[in-house]
């Protein structure tokens, strides 16, 4: 090795690897290395349960009062939406869509709402909508107020930001139960859960928006003689209207996805509940059809709020008459009234008759059954291949995964020697070429793959992740990472945490590689880009549950299904960021490389990708976040990690274990987030690219 290239970081890593190998070799002697001793598990969850019981017993009536207050508006909206004949509502929704964005959206809205009627889920759809109709304004209001507070007070912001991280990363299943215990059974639980989950993006966008207003715009407002309140409402807020409306949009999407998750506790006849019951009854065709309702609802609301964000007033020197101004409103009111009268005559326009309900659900089930019976072998082959050659080696390592039953041969000392020599040789070769860090990575990877994530002694895992955090983001991140992992060990969730990391990790890596490749392709080919974009948009507005359904249909319950569902959801940001990063490189650098005579390949690998890598890393960051979000839902198809404990906590009514496991997931998410962010930031600074992205 070139000795002058060796820095202290390199020796730190060698030491870490040596310690890991040493720990593995003496694992047999010291049992506590392989398994965190039970005696040292702190019963946090029991303490939390005691606190919860006390709160419910002593402050219960207070929360019940809030619950009662919130029940009213939902009830009222629900009554109105159910009272209106479907024909009137469909017309009005389409009119709103037209006003927001034009004919195309109006037609889309019309077809989508009629779909809800025809498949016979109109009432359930309206029940879900009424919950959203209350939760979204509430979340927006709370988010806006907190955002403004955070904007004006630095001290408030320092408290708000980390709390937002927690609200967005602690899985919803974990806080459904405490809400249920405090606020009682009913729609209010869904409301509160969805508000809690959907206000953070509003806060973030409000703060970012208010910050982004150019100082000269503020000054020109002041020089125009704006009072403080005029300055806020007529200068600051409208100047960042787009950003704030983006927050509204994100809050709406989050709220919709939460409405489904919240219905897992039942008690309401809404869409979420229908999705769940049909899944439980293995009526996958029906569940997909119903799930589509939520997806369509999400798309419509998304496009409408987006359309409103783009709209702007037109000045007409010839003052418009009253009729012109309110033309659309008049037409909508008139049309609604006419349809209402018609509905009194033709009852079809009020209640869609049961015999006219058209549902291909049964046919879909039959088709699926046919598919599964006839392609049984192929489906199983895919499953087995992935399980034996990808999932098992990472989970329990080559030493456990390779056996005559799985790989067709047993691991002999001969194989082991070859593996060790090959890996050592490879990393030595990298080291000789001056790429010390790459060599270290190969060594770490070799150890991981051989022994498996779940078999590496827990102190070593804490050490490795801690050192990664330290190297990437400085001492605080390193310490934080160690404490976070320590929390998992101390609360007795170590094994499950590793399973979560394992599943999420594979999914994130596959999604990242797959998504980035597609993104690179899309960045160089406009047609691919145009093709991929609507798919991305749809996947992102699709509620998590619905994504799960097709995979359960084909591959049944199990870890592999969970993995596929996570990948399906998490590859989207990887595509987006890769394309964005590559398409927004400084033009001069590309030109310079072309002038030096770089070939297409050289340009891509030597210039574009290294420069776009920081942005791609943000894509990895988002991929991991998405993967963790989906992992929670994947608990429903029987995965074994922390997410399963959260789910069990909810179904057993054990507040403590649910919230502790939920916190564990939040910790994993936050550590992954901070590490990738820190890496991307330092790299951008080194490259002199815009660090504010």
């Amino acid at each position, binding site marked *: 090795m070139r000795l002058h290239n060796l820095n202290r970081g390199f020796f730190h890593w060698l030491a870490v690897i040596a310690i890991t190998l040493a720990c593995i070799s003496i694992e047999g002697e010291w049992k506590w290395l392989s398994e965190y001793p039970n005696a040292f598990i702190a019963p946090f969850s029991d303490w939390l349960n005691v606190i919860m019981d006390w709160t419910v017993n002593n402050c219960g009536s207070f929360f019940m009062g809030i619950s009662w207050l919130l029940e009213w508006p939902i009830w009222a909206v629900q009554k109105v939406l159910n009272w209106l004949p479907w024909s009137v509502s469909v017309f009005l929704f389409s009119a709103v869509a037209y006003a927001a964005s034009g004919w195309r959206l109006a037609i889309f809205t019309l077809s989508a709402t009629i779909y809800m009627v025809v498949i016979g889920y109109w009432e359930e759809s309206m029940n879900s909508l009424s919950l959203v109709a209350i939760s979204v304004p509430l979340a927006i209001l709370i988010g806006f107020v907190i955002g403004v507070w955070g904007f004006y007070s630095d001290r408030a912001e320092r408290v708000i930001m980390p709390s937002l991280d927690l609200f967005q990363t602690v899985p919803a299943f974990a806080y459904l139960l405490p809400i249920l215990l405090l606020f009682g059974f009913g729609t209010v639980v869904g409301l509160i859960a969805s508000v809690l989950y959907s206000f953070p993006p509003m806060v973030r966008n409000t703060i970012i928006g208010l910050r982004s207003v150019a100082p000269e715009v503020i000054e020109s407002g002041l020089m125009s003689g704006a009072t403080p309140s005029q300055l806020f409402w007529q200068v600051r807020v409208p100047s960042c209207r787009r950003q704030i409306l983006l927050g509204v949009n994100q809050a709406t999407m989050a709220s919709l996805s939460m409405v489904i998750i919240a219905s897992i506790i039942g008690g309401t006849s809404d869409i979420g509940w229908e999705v769940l019951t049909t899944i439980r009854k293995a009526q996958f065709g029906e569940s997909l059809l119903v799930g589509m309702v939520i997806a369509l609802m999400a798309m419509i609301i998304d496009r409408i709020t987006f359309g409103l964000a783009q709209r*702007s007033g037109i000045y007409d020197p010839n003052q418009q008459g009253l009729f012109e101004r309110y033309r659309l409103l008049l037409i909508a009111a008139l049309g609604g009234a006419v349809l209402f009268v018609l509905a009194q005559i033709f009852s079809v326009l009020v209640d869609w008759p049961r015999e006219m309900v058209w549902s291909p659900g049964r046919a879909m089930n039959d088709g699926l059954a046919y598919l599964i019976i006839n392609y049984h072998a192929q489906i199983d082959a895919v499953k087995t291949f992935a399980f034996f050659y990808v999932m098992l080696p990472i989970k329990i390592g080559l030493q456990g995964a390779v056996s005559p039953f799985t790989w067709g041969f047993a691991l002999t000392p001969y194989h082991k020697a070859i593996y060790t020599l090959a890996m050592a040789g490879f990393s030595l070769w990298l080291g000789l070429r001056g790429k010390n860090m790459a060599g270290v990575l190969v060594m770490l990877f070799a150890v991981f793959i051989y022994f498996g994530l779940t078999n590496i002694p827990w102190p070593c895992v804490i050490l490795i992740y801690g050192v990664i955090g330290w190297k990437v983001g400085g001492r605080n991140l390193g310490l934080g990472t160690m404490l976070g992992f320590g929390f998992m060990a101390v609360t007795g969730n170590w094994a499950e945490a590793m399973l979560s990391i394992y599943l999420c990790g594979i999914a994130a890596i596959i999604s990242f590689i797959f998504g980035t490749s597609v993104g690179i392709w899309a960045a160089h080919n406009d047609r691919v880009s145009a093709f991929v974009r609507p798919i991305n948009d749809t996947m992102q507005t699709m509620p998590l549950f619905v994504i799960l359904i097709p995979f359960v249909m084909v591959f049944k319950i199990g870890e592999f299904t969970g993995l596929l569902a996570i990948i399906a959801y998490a590859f989207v940001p990887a595509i987006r960021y890769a394309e964005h990063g590559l398409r927004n490189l400084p033009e001069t650098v590309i030109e310079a490389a072309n002038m030096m005579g770089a070939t297409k390949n050289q340009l891509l690998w030597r210039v574009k990708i290294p420069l776009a890598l920081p942005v791609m890393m943000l894509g990895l960051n988002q991929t991991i976040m998405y993967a963790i979000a989906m992992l929670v839902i994947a608990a429903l198809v029987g995965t074994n990690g922390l997410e399963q404990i959260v789910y069990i906590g909810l179904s057993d009514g054990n507040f403590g274990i649910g919230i502790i496991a939920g916190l564990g997931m939040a910790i994993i998410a936050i550590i992954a987030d901070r590490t990738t962010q820190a890496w991307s930031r330092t790299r951008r600074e080194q490259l002199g690219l815009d660090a504010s992205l």
Partner: protein
Amino acid sequence: MKTSVEDRKEIKLSCRNVWKVYGARPEGFFENGNGLVKDVSSHAEKLRENDHIVANADVTFDVHAGEIFVIMGLSGSGKSTIVRCLSRLVEPTAGEIILDGEDLLKKSDAELIDIRRHKMGMVFQSFGLMPHLNVIDNVAFPLKLQGKAENECYQQAKRVIELVELQGRENNYPKELSGGQQQRVGIARSLAVEPDIWFLDEPFSALDPLIRKQMQDEFLSIQLKLQKSIVFITHDFHEALRLADRMAIMRDGAIVQIGRPVDLILNPVDDYIREFTLDVPWETILTAADIAEPSDEPLAGLGSVSEDTLIEKLLYYLGDNDRGVIVHAKDGSVLGVATARGVVKALSAGSGPDTSSVKV
């Protein structure tokens, strides 16, 4: 030298010993609050030694009614800060700002808002347009803030839009306009309230050179119509020369020299100012009056010119006539004689007394 016409005019805005200091506790260095200190440079030094940033040090000048007063300085010289002190966008640390005989710094927030609504207009370097409003709403914005009737706002807005020749663009949004057009909107907006005093903070610096020249011409013609009292900030010495009735040059937060552009060219107080004047096309700035000298010799047989004739126009005549040309004031009186020697002397003021290359 002639006496400046502007000196006789009333003073509109007056800036007296204004200091702006950023830091932990700048007020402590100005106990009486009026900014009067014995030795400006040593006081500024003391502030800097105590980890304070001195943005403006003892800035004093007057702006007369109807004149264009240009403040010129390189970036970091404190010119943007001083114009913000004048409008109290930045609160001065010490000193007085007197607008129409009243101390602006003593005004309450409500009074200040009222003054800004009716007396002040400001144009910004990067335009500062409201991105969410179209052209006419941007221009009508200050009027609407005053709570005027919508109709009235739009009529007034239309008038000033015509003044800056943007008619037909009323419905465009700022991002749909070119830089020059955006700044026209900024100018129209600042004029919508018919202000007495007009602040322009590097209004043309973000524009292309050609557009800049064109905007300067239009600015001058607008000023010819409106006769506002103007404080114009720029970092471009040539722009200052083109526009200024009087100008001040700033360095390190303090004013180095104040005067008519010609005074600065002919009598730079130090090398810093002289540096700027070096590449000035002096023949397009100096007039016959600037080089006219009293003459003892008989004036018979000499040609005559009016005092504001540019030297550029005299060069050929002076080349042929050693004795020079008679310079008349506007009232017909004789100011003196302009000679080729006078031209050479004025020119040499820019380069200083350097005779090293001459063998005697």
